[in-house]
């Protein structure tokens, strides 16, 4: 399968294969190929297959994408090409079969119910009960019922503890922030927490927060007990009973 190798100082840092899904490259950790360097934009470029050829596209990055030292917006990639992003080099290997186009690949995987349909209440209750039973046997469901809470351990804020009820929680000085920071030079929106289906994600606002001491340039999922630090405030993320 064709692949991309991320190189730094002539050493391979990471390899990803290019399949039917596009590969995104950037500084944010949710990219398929994250590149941790300040010269790299959050979503810098993407690589995908089009009509059987590997293509790279720059996502209007600040410092540009270079193929064999030529700055490009969009370019076909060939075996052995070197892509330069910031101080990193990505080696292109197009050997092996080109992946199936997106649609056919997915169709082959599973026959899909194409028409949207709504479950009426009876069927729905049964299905959810089955699902819940499955969840319990896998010991997942129990953690879901707990209340996500941020406990303030240090710094100035308007409360000592916050229960996360909204899909979006803003940490900052703004009058509309859920977690209001006090102090002259605090940012309006220091960071934010987004509730998603699989958990709570902390992402940067005007400041880059740290989770357990590590700075996070893009959204990361919070785990029970994580320590968050942003704009001089220390927060402990926990699931309360």
């Amino acid at each position, binding site marked *: 399968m064709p692949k991309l190798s991320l190189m730094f100082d002539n050493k391979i840092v990471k390899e990803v294969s290019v399949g039917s899904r*596009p590969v*995104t490259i950037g500084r*944010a950790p*949710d*990219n*398929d190929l994250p590149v941790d360097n300040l010269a790299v934009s*959050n*979503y810098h470029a*993407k690589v995908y297959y*089009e009509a059987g050829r590997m293509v790279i596209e720059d*996502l*209007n990055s600040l410092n540009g994408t270079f193929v064999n030292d030529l700055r490009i917006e969009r370019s076909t990639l060939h075996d052995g090409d070197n892509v330069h992003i910031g101080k990193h080099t990505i080696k292109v290997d197009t050997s092996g079969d080109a992946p199936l186009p*997106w*649609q056919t690949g*997915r169709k082959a*995987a*599973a*026959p*899909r*119910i*194409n*028409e*949207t*349909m*709504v*479950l*009426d*209440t009876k069927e*729905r209750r049964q*299905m*959810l009960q089955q*699902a*819940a039973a*499955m*969840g319990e046997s*896998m010991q*997942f*469901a129990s*953690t*879901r019922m707990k209340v996500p809470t941020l406990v303030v351990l240090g710094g100035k804020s308007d409360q000592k503890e916050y229960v996360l009820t*909204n*899909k*979006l929680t*803003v940490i900052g000085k*703004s009058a*509309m*922030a859920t977690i209001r920071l006090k102090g002259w030079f605090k940012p*309006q*929106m220091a960071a*934010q927490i*987004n509730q*998603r*289906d*699989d958990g709570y994600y902390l*992402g*940067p*606002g*005007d400041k880059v927060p740290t989770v357990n001491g590590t700075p996070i340039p*893009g*959204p990361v999922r919070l785990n029970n007990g994580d320590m968050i630090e942003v704009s001089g405030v220390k927060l402990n993320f926990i699931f309360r009973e």
Partner: protein
Amino acid sequence: MRIVSGGVTDVGRVRTNNEDCFRIVAPLNLFVLADGMGGEAHGEIASALAVETVMKHCLDAETNPAARVLGKVEPNWSANTKRLSTAVHLANRSIFKSAQEHMEQHGMGATLTAAWIDGTKLSIAHVGDSRAYLLRGGNLLQLTRDHSLVAEQVRRGILTIAEAEESEMQSVLLRALGAQPEIEVDAEEHTLFPRDVLLLCSDGLTRVVTEPEIAGVLQAEPDPVRGAEELVALANERGGPDNITVVVVRLLKDSKGWFSWLRRGERKNLGANGNAGGN
């Protein structure tokens, strides 16, 4: 804040009719999107009925501010959020009623995602698996939860996100307008900041275009209509398996400050009320 918005709807590459529907009410800063379902042309009827009902109820706010509030509401919600949530309840009733009265429309329904901006306050009301996102500081934040079986299974920890994306049950909804006489509506309020980008989209986009890609396009393209067109084109490149509808709303800093005279040239390019495109 200044608001510019635009939207595009497209039939896709597989379907023959477009059951999606969207409406931008520029003077109100109201944005409504619906994805219909049901045989023959009935999905189209359902989504259009949903959008029209919501629009009408919100437009009536000026002339009839004391209209009854329906469903569960939080006491601290703004009048707009209460109104928008009520409007979605009304849309459910009108689709349900129409389906009861016309035998051939039985089983029709629609998803609905609506956003109403008043100053810096954003009200969201939502039922189904269309989505609202906010692009802020380079991060794409999801403001709605899908009311689909697979999303519920992810929330309960039974499926991972990756498993849900491969599931053949993706089209099974737990909640939609028109299926029952009364439903539960998700509504929420958020505060907007300058440079935020609000996105409403039907599942025709999110099934085939990944979130980092959506973030990339919204970041790179300052024009809302062109941004929406690019996202639709991307979904069509991936086979366009379903109807695709995208509404992009950009919040810009008011240029009333000291340097506004420097930017005056830029404002001329916009329409009468600062909105570009949309229907």
